[in-house]
């Protein structure tokens, strides 16, 4: 493993360590083989479980100015229904008058049920390196985990849900910035990789299903759970775009587009990611 550089250092470092630990000849494998082995070593144990438990505690804890829990939050299947809810998000919420993904819906519930200030609740959605998981990361891990095995069924009934899909799809192909990158630059061909890392073709059902059903995911190279919105925003960073706003129309549109592409796949999140 020589001459590695740039943005992939943490992953490659982790890969090298794992390669050494398991006596693997790294040079003959792609990243994905290594991480598949790593997943196998974990068996049914995913370090995300600890964070799922933190999320469950947060869900039930009386917090905020109103000292209320989130247990009556309506994630789309009725107040307090958590099982299977994540597999049907994003969706249109009549009370908010817009399409929401899990993360923006959680912020809505924190504001409405617990009395938090909206800007405050969404101010730092993702934890920094070495920090405890954010409330949204822990809650997302918990709620996604409660959809395990439920087939993805992101609704396209309401006009706003169809509009979110169209916005996401159109943005997927948008080329901009100094490097002219779109999502499609890396994610519209099958069997390709960047450096050693396989790139899912998100315009093809097979790869889209696998990708969508495993987010949020425990990111091995970062030692924490990362959410679907984090995934979208970090791709935008690498595209050299400005910062994708949390809960923005484009973020929710992209997640809707991917969710519809992943129709029918049993949820398997939080996944284990490189």
């Amino acid at each position, binding site marked *: 493993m020589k001459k590695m550089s740039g943005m992939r250092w943490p992953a490659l470092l982790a890969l090298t360590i794992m390669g050494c630990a398991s006596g693997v000849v790294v040079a003959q494998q792609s990243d994905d083989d290594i991480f598949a082995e790593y997943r196998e070593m974990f068996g049914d144990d995913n370090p995300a479980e600890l964070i799922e438990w933190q999320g469950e505690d947060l869900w039930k804890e009386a917090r905020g100015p109103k000292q209320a829990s989130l247990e009556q939050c309506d994630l789309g299947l009725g107040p307090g229904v958590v099982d299977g809810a994540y597999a049907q998000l994003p969706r249109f919420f009549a009370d908010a008058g817009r399409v929401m993904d899990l993360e923006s819906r959680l912020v809505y519930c924190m504001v409405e049920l617990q009395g938090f200030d909206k800007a405050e609740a969404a101010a730092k959605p993702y934890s920094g390196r070495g920090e405890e998981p954010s409330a949204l990361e822990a809650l997302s891990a918990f709620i996604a985990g409660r959809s395990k095995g439920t087939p993805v069924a992101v609704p396209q009934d309401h006009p706003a849900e169809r509009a979110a899909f169209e916005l996401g799809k159109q943005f997927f192909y948008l080329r901009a910035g100094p490097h002219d990158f779109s999502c499609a630059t890396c994610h519209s061909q099958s069997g390709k990789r960047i450096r050693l890392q396989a790139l899912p073709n998100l315009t093809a059902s097979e790869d889209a299903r696998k990708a969508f059903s495993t987010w949020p995911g425990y990111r091995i190279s970062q030692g924490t759970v990362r959410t679907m919105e984090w995934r979208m925003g970090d791709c935008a960073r690498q595209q050299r*775009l400005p910062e994708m706003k949390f809960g923005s129309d484009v973020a929710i549109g992209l997640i809707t587009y991917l969710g519809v592409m992943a129709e029918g796949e049993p949820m398997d999140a939080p996944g284990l990611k490189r």
Partner: protein
Amino acid sequence: MRTFGWVKCVGAAVLSTALVSCASTAADAQAQAPSFDDAVKSSFKERGQAGMDRLNRNAMQLACSVPADQSPTGDAAKAIQEQAQARVVFPADGEYFGDWKAGEKIAQTGKGMQYSDDPAEPNGGNCYACHQMAPDEIAYGTLGPSLKGYGKLRGTSDPMLQYTWTRLWNSHVYNVCSHMPRFGDAGILTEQQLKDVMAYLFDPKSPVNQ
């Protein structure tokens, strides 16, 4: 909400996708629906060196914001390619080659122009993200063609050097919707950096040609 107003849709330059969007959402359109561009602008904010101007698309970016099978053809493609060709700047001193060792570093470095990057540091070219180059570097991507033995296989005739410089400067001269960044045209790499990459590709001593 968030449907595309059909009037703006028809006016949009991204014709094919816009038309598809129109066809499937026209019935949903509401008077107050924001345009696609407005929805995109409101979804981002400036951060570090990545300003909102990065969302302003040029003619190529607009025309190529479509699935590959809908890329412009005919006169539309020709116009983009001719404009790209007209903007190519060849080395002022006529010298194409810099230092292949510096070029190797540029090929290996993926940093540069992200809001998380230090703007004081030189940008990388990140060639290895997409291309095989030196045979002993196994961590290469496959989005682009293999460049293993580039100079050894092609020689260093003037047309070959001009072609390769042009390919690095603005790949759209040859492929209208090439995925490759316009390293010269977009100011990602300096003239000296491009010369260094040229040397990495062509120098007989470069690992690429071993």
